[in-house]
């Protein structure tokens, strides 16, 4: 029994000799093996042919959960962001969002700096490629018209940063953190810039495979109920550095 066990668990010469050809056996067997830490390099955009004949360059990525992320080569909003879920609300606040809703099939729209994120409602019959082309053309037409992305009424009604911060902190203290304490998690509000909120997820949430769900279904809904004019909600957590995640993500480095 002891001999069998030793063969199964020890790095013996017999096991090393079974390593397939091509492996660096010499160095692997002679040099002392140290546990190396995996690090990540920033991912840079791959150069693609720009649509120079169309003037304004817009790229689109088709993301999971019916989302289309469009990036424009110039800012759409400066210092604020905008999120909405209905054509009626968009018509009152944002001509750009209203135009995007007009084609139908849209569940929500987020405008932030140079980005437009459209979530489809799943009722449309057109492909997501076609929908992305339609949204790109709508954004291009809006920019060429010279109209502002947001109405004066929306800008006048925006609460101040301190007011937003106080409201969100109250929600964190009263609802969010008590709810996730059972998983040893905690949410920290790190900054409010304009009406954009930045948070960090700590404890059991940092690196947890369900942190994205917690953020979108739990935290975001509570925040939007408290501050209806909240724009983007951005997670600044380095989830790869979590040392005690409640559910371990099976794919190291993948984003929640």
């Amino acid at each position, binding site marked *: 029994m002891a001999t069998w066990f030793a063969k199964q668990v020890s790095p013996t010469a017999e096991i090393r000799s079974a*390593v397939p050809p091509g492996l660096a056996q010499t160095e692997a067997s002679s040099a002392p093996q140290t546990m*190396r830490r995996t690090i990540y390099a920033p991912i840079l955009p791959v150069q693609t042919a720009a649509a120079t004949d169309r003037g304004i360059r817009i790229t689109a*990525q088709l993301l999971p959960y019916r989302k289309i992320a469009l990036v424009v080569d110039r800012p759409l909003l400066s210092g604020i962001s905008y999120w909405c879920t209905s054509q009626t609300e968009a018509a009152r606040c944002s001509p750009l969002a209203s135009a995007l809703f007009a084609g139908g099939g849209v569940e929500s729209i987020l405008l932030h700096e140079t980005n437009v994120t459209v979530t489809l409602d799943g009722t449309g019959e057109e492909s997501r490629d076609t929908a992305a082309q339609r949204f790109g053309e709508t954004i291009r037409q809006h920019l060429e018209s010279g109209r502002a992305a947001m109405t004066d009424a929306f800008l006048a009604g925006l609460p101040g940063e301190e007011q937003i911060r106080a409201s969100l902190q109250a929600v964190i203290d009263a609802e969010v953190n008590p709810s996730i304490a059972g998983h040893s998690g905690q949410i920290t509000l790190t900054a409010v810039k304009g009406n954009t909120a930045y948070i960090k997820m700590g404890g059991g949430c940092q690196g947890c495979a369900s942190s994205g769900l917690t953020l979108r279904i739990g935290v975001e809904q509570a925040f939007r109920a408290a501050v209806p004019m909240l724009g983007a909600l951005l997670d600044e957590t380095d989830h790869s550095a979590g040392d005690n995640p409640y559910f371990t993500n099976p794919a190291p480095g993948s984003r929640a």
Partner: protein
Amino acid sequence: MPRLDMLQLTIKVGERGLGRNPRYEINGFDLEFDAIEGGCGPNETLKLVGKPKRFPRSMTLTGPDEGCWDIKEIIATYHVATADFNANDSGPYTLRLGAVTLDAETKLNLWYERPPPLLEV
């Protein structure tokens, strides 16, 4: 899970080079590249080809045994084979990785699934 048939790396080396041939790991197994062109000295460009024909759960570029190795940029092209017949999921894909420094205690993550398609709209 895709099978990685071939990996092509173009590495632009920074101020500090690598004193030996580069190696990589798949799923913890130490591998040598099948073809090496160029040099890994300071400010040189290195072209590497690996033909692992394996299903990576992890893939890393091993750092130097001593000192530091500065990398300005890596262009990585992945030739993968998948079991399904989705036309959007075929053919090689390329990623650009930015500047990073490796040392005797680190290895650089090289495994990335195919990114969502980027469309000009």
